[in-house]
């Protein structure tokens, strides 16, 4: 039995469809319910539905053998896991966004609103820039509009949300997409199952 942590939401559904198409199906997954654990003994798989930001924690701590997490989350949390495959799903960019026409004042500390404080701190440290982090958990785009911050660091998919809030990408930090990650203990003790999963996905997504 292999335990797979999937992120709740659209990305999780897309990943499940991919896994299901290559033999890791679980009929109960598609039923309307509030369950968070779905098991299929025939396919030898147990799916765990988890908040996207927490998938890596479940994998690192061995509650799941493998999981799917965005690279944005991996860059933020730096979990001690193996990153085995880029699934090519959920592509987006970690970027600095600012109000249209923003002109950076290098004479003052930059106020950065973000749910990625670690990424933001590292990025600006590499540029020797003093910043003040404002940690938010959602609706980040509001922060510069209301004068709470100068810029935001967030993921940008199509840019539609930014445009609707009169913001635009100011700098790109790193590309992101969904990654298959594995717990290091599980990789040692379930290597055959994990390698089979990785090879089958790689073949299917060629």
């Amino acid at each position: 039995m292999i335990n797979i942590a999937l992120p709740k939401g659209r990305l999780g559904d897309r990943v499940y469809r991919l896994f299901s198409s290559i033999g890791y199906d679980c009929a109960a997954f598609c039923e309307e319910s509030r369950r968070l654990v779905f098991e299929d003994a025939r396919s030898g798989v147990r799916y765990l539905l988890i908040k996207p930001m927490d998938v890596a924690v479940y994998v690192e701590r061995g509650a799941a053998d493998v999981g799917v997490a965005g690279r944005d989350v991996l860059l933020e949390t730096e979990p001690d896991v193996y990153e085995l495959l880029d699934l090519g799903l959920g592509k987006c960019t970690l970027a600095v966004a600012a109000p249209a026409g923003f002109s950076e004042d290098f004479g003052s500390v930059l106020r950065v609103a973000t749910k990625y404080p670690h990424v933001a701190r590292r990025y600006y440290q590499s540029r020797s820039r003093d910043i003040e982090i404002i940690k938010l958990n959602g609706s980040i785009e509001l922060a510069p509009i209301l004068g709470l911050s100068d810029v935001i660091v967030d993921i940008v998919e199509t840019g539609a949300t930014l445009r609707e809030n009169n913001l635009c990408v100011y700098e790109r930090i790193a590309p992101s997409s969904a990654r298959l990650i594995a717990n290091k203990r599980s990789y040692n003790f379930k290597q055959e199952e994990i390698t089979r999963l990785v090879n089958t996905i790689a073949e299917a997504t060629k």
Partner: protein
Amino acid sequence: MQHKGTQGRASILELRFGSLQKCERAALAMRSIYELYGYRNFRMGKFEEYDFYTENRDFLPGGPIITFTDLNGKLMALKPDVTMSIVKNTRAAADAPERLYYTESIYRMSQEVREYKEICQIGVEYIGAVTPFTNIELVGLACKSLACIEESYVLDLSHMGYLAGLFESVPVTAEQRRALLGCIQSKNAHELVRLAAQCGLSPADEERLLRVLRISGPLPAALVEARSLAVNAAMRDAADELASLADVLGDAPLRLDFSITSDPKYYNGLMFRGFVQSVPRAVLSGGRYDHLLRRMGKENLHAIGFAIYFDEVERYFKQPAAAGYDAFILYDESADLAALYRAVEKLAGEGRRVGTGMTKPAGAACGALYRLTGSALAGEAL
């Protein structure tokens, strides 16, 4: 009479040993193994002068050290590491190696929760002239230590010399090397391919890096692949060193996996990391650290060692603490204290958790209940 008393004590000690937590038994078993193989227990104080850590600060995991000012105004640190203190105090010489083991608490900041943690470590250090047999001895001890924790274990091996040779064979800058090594550490093949293109590596160099990244499996078979990728003396020498382990310790669950790396400023040669099936993270980590000795002024010495993270082990093997008693003796003012003492000793001698009192303890299971009146002990219904 004397003989009977000693026997009684021995049997109670045996029974008590049986009631220890599994991880406590594992720790005792490890210590007796290290003693058997000629290692001496090394005890040390909990504090070290803070200055001691400043020169080799990056030998230690990130995060601040807990410091305080002592009564003489010196800035002191709660030890974040044991190995550096052992190296500082070693009296080893090339022809007189020191074999030491320790059970110590260290104090580090947990990167996950940004809080300080007390971490119990059991470790083994060999300082002197490291021969191929020393590697075998230490890897053998690491396997025996893991087996004390759980029967199902694996020891992953890697070699810093092999990786150094690999990166000598590809034209990359120090920064690019760090990034590529990071990909090998996390088995991130897709990022390695992207970086290789960015560095302008030839398809052959990229392929060699990718194949090293993918090496992960039982030592003898994986070593064949590692040998086939060796393009210089450093890589071949490392493969020979690993082969001697495979030859002698062939029955042990040794695997080759180059995702195990460490800072080359301190580490060289063999590296290893141990896992047991019930614990999701590595419980043992070790390797050869001659470069740390050079940096600490011990020019002609070599060293290899490992540590077991007992906090990880304890978390997963912790058994619920026994609550209540197997037997409880109620007594009153008329009780003959000598008779009460004999009754307690008899029940404890049978391996039962025994309690006494003038009333039944509230909220605790008493097991078999006895009542002592005068010197007469009578069992009662539960």
